[in-house]
C-alpha cells in the first residue's frame, strides 16, 4: 500500500513537474539566440519564473519519493512502474497545456511506454 502510494508520488510528481516546466518555458518564449549575453538573461528569467520553480519542486519530490521507495522495494518493480509517467504526462500535456495528440503520436508514446517497461525488467 505504502509502495503504491510512493510510486503514485513518483509518477504524478514527475508528470506535474514536466507540465509546469513546459508552462514556464512557453511563457519565456521560443529560445532562438546563441548570443551568450542574451542566453544569460534568458537563464535569469527562467530561474525566476514561478511555473518553472513549481515544476522543479514537483520533480524534486518525485526524485526523493523514488529514492525512498527504493529503500524497501525492488528497482525491477519500481522502474517499470514509472514508465507509466509517459502516458500520464501526455494526458497532462493534452488537458492542461492543450497540446493536440494525434493518433500517430499517441501510438508512438504507448510504444515508448511499453519499451521502457520492458527495458526496466530484470
Amino acid at each position: 500500500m505504502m509502495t503504491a502510494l510512493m510510486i503514485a508520488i513518483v509518477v504524478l510528481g514527475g508528470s506535474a513537474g514536466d507540465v509546469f516546466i513546459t508552462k514556464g518555458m512557453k511563457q519565456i518564449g521560443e529560445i532562438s539566440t546563441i548570443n551568450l549575453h542574451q542566453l544569460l538573461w534568458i537563464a535569469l528569467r527562467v530561474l525566476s519564473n514561478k511555473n518553472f520553480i513549481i515544476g522543479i519542486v514537483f520533480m524534486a519530490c518525485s526524485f526523493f519519493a523514488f529514492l525512498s521507495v527504493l529503500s524497501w522495494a525492488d528497482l525491477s518493480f519500481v522502474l517499470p512502474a514509472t514508465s507509466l509517467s509517459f502516458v500520464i504526462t501526455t494526458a497532462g500535456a493534452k488537458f492542461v497545456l492543450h497540446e493536440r495528440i494525434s493518433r500517430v503520436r499517441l501510438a508512438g508514446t504507448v510504444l515508448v511506454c511499453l519499451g521502457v517497461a520492458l527495458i526496466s525488467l530484470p
Partner: protein
Amino acid sequence: MKESEDTQMKTPVVLIVAIISQAIGNVFITKAMKLITSPVAGGDDLVSTVARAVTNPTLWLGTALLIIFFVLYSAALSWADLSFVLPATAFGYVLNVAAGHYFLSESVTPARWAGSLIITLGVFLVSRSGVRTIDTPQEIS
C-alpha cells in the same frame, strides 16, 4: 500547425545533443559511483564516501553533462510540445542500454534489446507527428 524552418532544424539538433549528453553523463556517473563505493577505495562510512564523491572528477563531469541535458531539454520545451519532447528523449534509454553494454560491459538481456527496438519504433512514430501543435505562445501572467 505552422513551424518555421528554424524550429524544424533546431529541434532534432538540440534533442540529439541532449540525449547524447545524458547517456555519456550516466556512464560517467555509474563508473564514478561504482569506484567510490568499492571496498578497495577506502572506508565505507558516510563522511569518507561523500568526501571521495565530491573530489571525484568523473562524477563532476557526469553531473555537468546531466545539467547540459536538462538545460537543452528545457530549452526545447520553450518551443516544442511536451508530448513531443518527452517520448522523443526516451531514445536516451536505447543509448543507455548500448552505452552500458559497450562501455561498462553490462550484460543486456534479449528483453532489453526488444524493449530498445520498441522504443525506437515509438520514437520514430512520435517524430512523424510534428514538433508543435499549439500556435500561439501563452501570455505571461
